[in-house]
């Protein structure tokens, strides 16, 4: 999926994460900050990158400000931000496909 414009999903409230995606400059660049970085930083990074890969995002600048979101929340926020960034949020959500 190609990132066409900057988009954001999620909030900065506790147990949530704010995910911003922007068109990249070649490759996926992830900037992560988290209130539980020491405990779960690697897990969060892996979840975000895996979700992007599943969506076929290969060129993006992704910023995640995590406030202790569960994996399922993170996935949902990443998916939502990506769909918004390519104008797909209203239709054609591939439920059961790349969205699992």
């Amino acid at each position, binding site marked *: 999926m190609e990132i066409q*414009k*900057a*988009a*954001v999903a*999620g*909030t*900065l*409230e*506790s147990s949530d994460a*704010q995910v*911003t995606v*922007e068109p990249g400059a070649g490759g996926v660049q992830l*900037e992560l*900050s988290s*209130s539980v970085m020491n405990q779960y930083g690697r897990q969060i990074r892996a979840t975000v990158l895996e979700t992007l890969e599943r969506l076929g995002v290969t060129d993006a600048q992704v*910023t995640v*400000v995590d*406030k202790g979101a569960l994996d399922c929340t993170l996935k949902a926020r990443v998916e939502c931000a990506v769909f918004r960034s390519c104008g797909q949020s209203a239709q054609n959500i591939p439920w059961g496909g790349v969205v699992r």
Partner: protein
Amino acid sequence: MSYTLSEIHPDDHRGMAQVRNLLEQEGIRRDGNLDYTCGIFNDDWELAATGSCFGNTIRCLAVSGRHRGEGLLNQIVSHLVEVQLARGSAHLFLYTKPDSAQYLSDLGFYEIVRVPGSLVFMENRRGGFDRYCASLSPKPQEGQSTAGVVMNANPFTLGHRHLVERAARENDVVHLFVLSEEAGPIPSAVRRELVEQGVRDLPNVFCHATGPYLISSATFPSYFLKDSDTVIRTQAELDLRIFCQIARRLGIQRRYVGQERSSHVTRLYNEVMCQKLPEAGIQCVEIPRLTRDGAAISASAVRQAIHDGQPERIRDWVPASTYDFFTGPRGASVCAAIQREAEVIHY
């Protein structure tokens, strides 16, 4: 208790009065120029928290003392970031009080510079400002004298040329920063191009774009839109602190600036500059304006002449490259845009 987050329109007098009260209570001055304001109200529709936007900045953030520790600031910032993204701004800037900066740094904002006791300026890109500084070249070398010039060059005149020439003569390297902000009828790409053409024969002058970091609507909105003198001074001080950071990386030892008589905001800025730069170890060299027929050359006068439909009048005030542009085919649309403006003189 349940909370409602809502936009507060400028003509919602009751809501705006509550915003003003809350900001005052928290010791924050409400900026004159805001283009979006929101608030969180409690059950009794009392304002518990507020925040605003202007351009690509987030500002005037406050949480009522009675509602601390409930995560309201997070909701406000989340909402404002969404508003900004919906407008298409992804690189955001934020102002806050020094004692609140730590809360904002938990929300994905990183400090660029602070004015002690007054404010902290932040951005939502980790190392964004560092990357900007790193992109500037040439890097300082031992024993070299280096100067800095910052100009709007709206458009580039012989007055600007005079200033740059003097700096180039007295220094080994001159870093020439041209404002990137789009403000007014002459596009920033044109301003930049005319500067580059106008200094092409000076091999030790290096042009840079200021990006969002110097005299932009993020650092210095009152340069572009009227505001009170106190606001101008505070914003000028912030802007100069950023300049000092850049100067430190590039080894800039002195800054050249043209004397200002007519523009109120530039005069105040220069005044703050002459005071603040020496404190940071940077010499401030103020140069008298170049004159023609007894009158100082100014970009305002050039715009006025074009506005009045007499572009031939500017011939003695600008380099050939600028003159050719405005009288040539490419300049026609820009001239037309200047003529459409009601007011072309900088306040």
